[in-house]
């Protein structure tokens, strides 16, 4: 699993480059975030949680069963809106209220 930067959305704020625990993300000369090493991603989603414009998509590698779906995250105040899109176009959303504790 790893992440991709959607260059057309990225506004070059640099937030993700400061969030990655593996220093995998850097800003390039074109002022866009760049993933230096997709195979080294831990999948922690720290970068997605700080991106203001949903420019980072998350996917599962085929070696761990990925079938081409993409996941993005939008922050809406106290809510996290996770969107999962299948290659066939089906979309699924899951809302998480950040004030709520895990129940399990």
């Amino acid at each position, binding site marked *: 699993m790893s992440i991709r930067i959607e260059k057309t959305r990225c506004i070059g704020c640099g937030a993700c480059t400061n969030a990655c625990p593996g220093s995998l993300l850097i800003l390039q000369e074109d002022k866009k975030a760049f993933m230096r090493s997709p195979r080294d991603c*831990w*999948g922690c989603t720290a970068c997605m949680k700080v991106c203001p414009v949903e420019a980072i998509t998350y996917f599962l590698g085929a070696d*761990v069963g990925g079938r081409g779906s993409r996941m993005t995250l939008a922050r809406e105040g106290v809510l996290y809106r996770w969107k*999962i899109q299948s290659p066939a176009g089906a979309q699924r959303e899951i809302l998480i209220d950040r004030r709520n504790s895990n129940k399990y």
Partner: protein
Amino acid sequence: MEEKQLTTDILIIGGGTAGCFAAAKLGKSGLSVLIAEKANIERSGCLAAGVNALNAYIAPGHRPEDYVEYARKDGAGIVRDDLLLTIAQNVNRITEELEALGLVILKDEEGRHVTRGWRNVKINGENIKPLLAKAARTQKNVTVLNYVNILDLKTVGEGEEKRVAGAWGVSTRERVFYDIRAKAVLIATGGAAGLYRPNNPGFSRHKMWYSPFNTGAGFAMGLRAGAELTTLENRFVALRCKDTIAPTGTIAQGVGAKQVNALGEVYETKYGLSTPERIYGTVEENRAGRGPCYLHTRGIGEEKEQDLLRAYLNMAPAQTLKWVEQGGPNSEDVEIEGTEPYIVGGHTASGFWVSTKRETTLPGLFAAGDVAGGAPQKYVTGAMVEGEIAAAAAAEYARQAELPELDMEETRARLAEVEGHYSASEESLRAEDLEEAMQKIMDEYAGGIHTDYRYNEARLAVAKERIEALEQAAKNLPARDPFDLLHVYELKERLTVARALIAHLAARQETRWHIFGENADHPERSADFDCYINSRMEAGEVVTLRRPLVKGGTYEHTH
């Protein structure tokens, strides 16, 4: 290459859970504090993805002593009662401090924390690291140096006079070399992942349980500087959801799912319910040809499925994505597997050999969290307690210590070594190639997944010889840029830790814990090994020694 010289009263290496909390606690000390962190303290370390519970907590009706008793039993006696007790006495207060920092903790109608079992509170821990980072960064006397990878500890003096003097580091972003002098050093670099071939060795090679960016730097630096380590052979292996390496406890406890084999038989009761026993049972069922093994979730119902999807988004989003892509837990059982072994002092007892005050055997060097040994089951709150204890002891030490003098000769030698990597021929091997070789050797000869975690003397001898050969090869690795250089040093650290681990595995000639240490030559437990196996580096060789069990009271080094 540019050189920078810095001085501080206290240097904290690693701004993770323990490091950030230690810095926050030093806020009123009147001393200057410098955190050197290889990533950025905002989200670095184990807490990057967030956590879903505080695993070290004592529910009403239980005493700190119960916690010690529990951890001692789980660790089959090879633990330090003194260290465990200091942790157990403070975890509830630390939980309150976390709440004051802004952490969401589940409460009942009367305002009491909701516990899972008697040692665990439920939280929304998604933002726990930014909260801790803020507590550290907002102290006036604390300076944060992000993107600096510390390579080695500096020492001054010889024999009895030897003490820590600071550290050398390199930027992970620019060609800059740091020479940091300090009166006292607190090491909190976490444990070691990536020593063994992982469950997913291909594209998703970093889809592992422990942080792949915690590479055992602290263990390696400590050994090279002459400090003593303990109980590395008490490796940690986690039971995880297959492929995604997501936690299984949330499913097992959340919806009461049982472990079943391919025939649908519940096997967990056959082998026991402790962490290693759950994995042991799974390995044994597979060996007997009754795999794959699963958590039996089929038929839990739509509502519980939705709850699980949500719960995993907060801590292991890959699992949620997988369920959405391929069918959820209500329609399919969840396959499980054991991970590759890690060295993690927060879960098992591996790490620096410390006094009750968390001073290592190298004067002036203090350790906390996953890098500190003797106190398993410390988790987030335990790592924070240790950060607090180590911070107080480091402050006391720094107040009476002199700032060490500049030692240009040693520093020149270090700088030359770093520059050597930048100028090495790119036609030679790369760090990535050697990392793969190391992981394969450890997997096949030092008890990885390949051999169902089993090893014997003959295999360990092969592992030792081959790891030593890789250490030689690693001296000439090329680095094109600071990011490459980071990987070169991470590999070198792992090789040092691997060599020490092999020595520890060979020294404990018994099987004390299933899975964590399956010694095929000695498959039984032996009272001869009711002791700690410790190690030190002497003239470049890892030597092991035995120390008697510490049962309560306080422990001070007699050096």
